[in-house]
């Protein structure tokens, strides 16, 4: 390696280099598309004739088709220029935040507290987000070696593909940020609490080093972080932040040099407003799970899986891409869960699990957050059931997790008339029956198949060895004593957590690795924080904790520019 190369290595980290080389930006896409063979390689098509595989011949080479012709870059359409005479109003602020969610509302308040005049433009009629738990590291009760051990664990969770600097930034600033969110949301009327370290039982020691946590809990359901961000928005309004609801951003305002000067948004009356930002635009529009073509392209794994969110069409991706930003390469990290059908504390307990029809499909010690990988086909579409009998309270007593007794399970049974508490009534899906056939019907499985599965499973259990899937012997308990229980879970896409290239100031970088002046990306739109196949559940509430933290830091940073 030449001396020059070595120096370059020191300047640009591995993650950033990789993303520039393999990610999607206007520059990389155009240059790769220019060479036919190279373009074919881009889509993994080198065995096919380049003509069939190459980009569609539109005059600007804006679109390309994938192997099956199903996915195209037309999910990132070039914005049509909006002329000045179409703009009904122009408003000037220091900072304009796009998206009032888990990262946007904190960013806006943080900027306002640091002296900036702030506008938030929001697509929905109010602030909107989801989830309950958002976490940070409590520096006062954590050993430095523990923090570094946790950072190493999170990097490993991301299959070593993330940007370590961003993980460290979360680790060293999240305690302060999450505490700040709790305090400010309370000022707005939120019942949010800090559940602290007890909520993170599995990571109180990491590699033997002591750790402490700040665990914000916006709950119990049906209260969520959505309600929490609405309460936080009240505090932000008091601090002078102006919110513009039902006003989706449609275009960035850029000058010839590529600097971002503001955003154009469309109000509820159908008219355009130009929001100029003297210090910067912070995009916080969330993920793109409801943009089918874009999801099929970047995360084909979830093609057949249901979504938990609405209207997350990746608007921020399109805005930042056309401003010169870089989307992380194909193979984005996904987050799929079902904490609602039955008790969350039982979701990882290794009871017999069967697919949608009633067949056993896995060594049940695989966590719920990974099961989507076994259920990706159109038929299963994320559906499976956990099955156990009435001895579960004693026979599974020593398993990790927390058992809910039969009386408590009624809270999750749609067929039980008891009033429901702390759950979404329309999501609970736990059942009890006197026979396996009847249970199968309630679980919408095939009765004959489930009966056969249970019979076979009981044989395996009786033999003391799981000759079918290799599950440890102490995780084998029979399904023999009526009544029988079943939790019909369906893992759906909670979030897609890969985004676009940013530096440690959360400023967007272009395909040359240079910051785009005036443009900042946070929340799931910001890249570099993950990289694994699935979102890790090591730190419960990492996703929201990271959104709050980077919102808090970025708001402050941009306000001080």
């Amino acid at each position, binding site marked *: 390696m030449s001396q020059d190369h070595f120096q370059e290595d020191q300047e640009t980290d591995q993650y950033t280099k990789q993303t520039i080389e393999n990610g999607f930006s206007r520059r990389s896409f155009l240059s790769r598309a220019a060479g036919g063979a190279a373009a074919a390689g881009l889509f993994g098509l080198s065995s096919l004739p380049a003509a069939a595989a190459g980009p569609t011949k539109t005059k600007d080479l804006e679109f390309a088709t994938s192997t099956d012709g199903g996915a195209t870059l037309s999910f990132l359409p070039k914005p049509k220029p909006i002329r000045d005479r179409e703009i009904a109003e122009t408003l000037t602020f220091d900072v304009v935040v796009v998206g009032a969610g888990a990262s946007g509302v904190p960013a806006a308040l943080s900027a306002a507290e640091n002296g900036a005049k702030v506008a938030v433009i929001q697509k*929905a*009629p*109010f602030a*909107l987000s989801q989830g309950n738990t958002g976490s940070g590291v409590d520096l006062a009760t954590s050993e430095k070696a523990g923090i570094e051990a946790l950072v190493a664990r999170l990097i490993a969770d991301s299959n070593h593909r993330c940007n370590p600097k961003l993980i460290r930034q979360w680790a060293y600033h999240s305690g302060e940020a999450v505490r700040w969110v709790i305090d400010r949301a309370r000022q707005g009327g939120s019942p949010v609490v800090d559940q602290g370290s007890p909520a993170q039982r599995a990571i109180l020691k990491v590699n033997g080093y002591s750790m402490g946590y700040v665990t914000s809990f916006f709950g119990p359901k*049906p209260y969520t972080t*959505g309600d929490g961000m609405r309460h936080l928005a009240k505090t932000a309004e008091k601090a002078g932040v102006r919110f513009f609801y*039902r006003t989706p951003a449609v275009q960035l305002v850029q000058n010839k040099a590529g600097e971002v000067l503001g955003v154009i948004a469309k109000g*509820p*009356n*159908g008219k355009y407003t130009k929001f100029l930002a003297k210090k910067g635009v912070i995009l916080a529009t969330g993920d793109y799970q409801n943009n089918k073509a874009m999801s099929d392209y970047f995360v084909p794994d979830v093609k057949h899986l*249901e*979504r*938990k969110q*609405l209207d997350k069409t990746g608007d921020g991706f399109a805005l930042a891409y056309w401003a010169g930003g870089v989307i992380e390469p194909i193979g984005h990290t996904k987050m799929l869960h079902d904490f609602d059908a039955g008790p969350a504390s039982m979701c990882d307990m290794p009871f017999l699990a069967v697919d949608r029809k009633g067949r056993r499909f896995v060594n049940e010690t695989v966590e719920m957050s990974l099961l989507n990988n076994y259920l990706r086909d159109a038929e299963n579409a994320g559906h499976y059931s956990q099955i156990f009998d009435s001895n579960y309270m004693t026979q599974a007593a020593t398993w990790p997790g927390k058992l809910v007794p039969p009386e408590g399970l009624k809270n999750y049974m*749609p067929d039980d008339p008891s009033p429901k508490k702390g759950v*979404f*009534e*329309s*999501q609970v*899906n736990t059942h009890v029956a006197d026979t396996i056939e009847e249970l199968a019907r309630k679980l919408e499985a095939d009765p004959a198949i489930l009966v056969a599965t249970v019979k076979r499973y009981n044989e395996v259990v009786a033999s003391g060895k799981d000759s079918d899937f290799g599950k440890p012997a102490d995780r084998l308990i029979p399904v023999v004593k009526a009544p029988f229980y079943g939790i019909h879970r369906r893992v*759906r896409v909670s979030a897609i957590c890969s985004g676009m290239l940013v530096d440690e100031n959360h400023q967007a970088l272009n395909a040359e690795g240079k910051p785009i002046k005036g443009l900042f990306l946070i929340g799931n739109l910001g890249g570099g924080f993950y990289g694994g196949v699935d979102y890790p559940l090591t730190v419960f509430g990492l996703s929201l904790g990271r959104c709050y933290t980077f919102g808090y830091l970025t708001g402050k940073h941009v306000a001080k520019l």
Partner: protein
Amino acid sequence: MKQMIVPKQAAALLVLLLTALPGGSLAAGPVVKGQVARTSKHATQGITCAQCHGKAAKKSVVAMQQCLGCHGDTKELAARTAQVKPTNPHENRHFGTEADCNRCHHEHATSENLCLPCHLRFGFKVP
């Protein structure tokens, strides 16, 4: 132009909707030339394409505001359906009272229930 056949149920609903219109200014009458899409329920009430889609040669997508012009305020609508079980479809945690009518109620296609399949058992019949 062929006669539109409106199922009894839909006709009854239309009557309901139209009686709910403020001012009752939309008298049923003959429809202009062959302009009416055969799928349109409104058409049977004598509402022309242009009344919703505008007069320009290139017909525009109908914005929600257009619906409200005749059907009235969203908050009033939400109040009228407050007792619907298991939950009020016109006031929800995703959009408040401001869900775009077109998300569920389609004029030229079968209407759909946006709540399903996420919310099991929210089995609304959407007119």
